[in-house]
């Protein structure tokens, strides 16, 4: 079971230099190939910090992250990270943005034809072939986020790390992006860690939901969902689960608040 996981975190502790308290303490995660795990938790709990550690952008204070069984040292070519903001470079066209980084020295060497094929596939996958020569200023928020996803896909990732990627989008665009993410995972077989503070998003997209809480943050709940996708009709099952997750979250917040009042008493 353990050796089957593509990305594995053990005993992650993170304490930013100079900070009085740790952000994470003792976090474990084993991500199976093709699995979508959602990390759910309130703002400021440490979700983004955790994602940066999983992506090799931030070294943990202690604990290990392994990719394909090998310890992660810095960023990994098969792990792609997308942030809440699309971060497209305004001076490049959409296709150049999607291709950005593919020719970097520390990325796997690809011929020009391979690079072009990957960019074309990625742009087609997110449905932006008609806009490939546009600059970011001409793209809507949803299109920009699609482009950012395509930039990740062009690297043919085994693991996608997504930090609240749809957080800034309106409801309709957001629903479209969620559908797109399900399609991408089904088409490419990539595993994904999706960070969100939206319970419904977690319920609609995940194979597994991990609830992060407390200070320092750790896993305070975990649910495995074996419902098929899309889940638009699974209202009843999801409703029950939703209440269970909410209750766990509320209890955690109440405990934390009472801790705080003790501290000041």
């Amino acid at each position, binding site marked *: 079971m353990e050796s089957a996981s593509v990305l594995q975190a053990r005993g992650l502790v993170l304490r930013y230099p100079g900070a009085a308290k740790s952000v994470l303490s003792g976090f474990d995660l084993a991500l199976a190939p093709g699995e979508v795990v959602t990390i759910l938790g309130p703002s400021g709990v440490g979700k983004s910090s955790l994602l940066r550690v999983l992506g090799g952008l931030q070294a943990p204070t202690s604990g290990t992250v392994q990719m394909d069984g090998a310890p992660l040292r810095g960023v990994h070519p098969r792990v792609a990270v997308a942030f809440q903001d699309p971060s497209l*470079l305004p*001076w490049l066209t959409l296709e150049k943005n999607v291709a950005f980084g593919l020719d970097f020295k*520390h*990325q796997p060497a690809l011929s020009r034809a391979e690079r072009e094929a990957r960019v074309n596939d990625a742009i087609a996958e997110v449905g932006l072939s008609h806009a490939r020569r546009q600059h970011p200023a001409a793209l809507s928020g949803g299109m920009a986020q699609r482009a950012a996803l395509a930039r990740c896909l062009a690297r043919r990732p085994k693991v996608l790390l997504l930090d609240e990627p749809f957080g800034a989008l309106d409801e309709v665009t957001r629903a479209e992006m969620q559908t797109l993410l399900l399609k991408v995972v089904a088409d490419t077989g990539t595993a994904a860690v999706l960070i969100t503070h939206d319970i419904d998003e977690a319920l609609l997209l995940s194979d597994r939901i991990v609830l992060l809480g407390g200070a320092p943050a750790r896993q305070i709940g975990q649910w495995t969902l074996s419902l098929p996708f899309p889940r638009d009709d699974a209202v009843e099952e999801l409703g029950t689960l939703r209440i269970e997750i909410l209750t766990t979250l509320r209890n955690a917040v109440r405990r934390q608040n009472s801790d705080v009042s003790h501290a000041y008493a």
Partner: protein
Amino acid sequence: MTHQQTTSTVAVAPAAAVVSAAGRAAVGRAFAVRLALGLGGLALVFVLWWIGTDVLAQKGSFLARFSPLTAVPALFDLLLHSDLPLHVVMSLQRIFVGLGFALLIGVPLGLAVGSFQVVEAATSPAFQFLRMISPLSWMPIAVMVFGVGDKPIYFLLTFAAVWPILLSTAAGVRALDPRWLQLSRSLAATPLETLWRVVVPGVLGHVLTGVRLAIGILWIVLVPCEMLGVSAGLGYFILDTRDRLAYSELMATVLLIGILGFALDSLARSLYRIWAPGG
């Protein structure tokens, strides 16, 4: 701060792309009004010039020799029937050589100053100090060190133009969107890749702002620089007209310096519009 800026750019741009015909007409009208006011202001300058030399000054007085009524025809005559165009070419060539050296020195230094706080702390008082010394005060030293001819002029022009370029470039580096740097880090970019693919294109707009400021300064410093030790260029030509007592030609040259400076500034502005990112 930067976050909000970029978000609003993304939100506003599609709206701007579908501006209605009425909106475009309004923009056109506003532009026409600005143009009319600007031309009116220029015309006023000429009228005041004319009043000073032809109405207030007595007929046959010294001042009357600088009248626009003789200067403007003299300018056309000079451009068509003298070697003034060659002097213009010489002056413009010096401007571009000076600008080239200033870019070669100012951009890399600006990148270093903007990237490393140590460099910035170590250099900024020295740069502010050097920047406030009028480039012209170096002239005697420059001539002693580089000899007479073009070399001291190149030195002085470079010295004058390097500061706005350096400071704008450094400001551009500090204003880089941190998310672009995070992106390049998440793609395992080497420092050189980050420099060439993110930092340099990202500061281009600021560099062009620096170039525009530099061209303004260069043009102002050039003419006095050319008044010493060279035998070509607009500065030389002005002194030459004075020595020949050709006052309408002198005034014509002054007029031409203004026109060329205006044209250079417009050129720099349109470069900025074409190349600045996101434009």
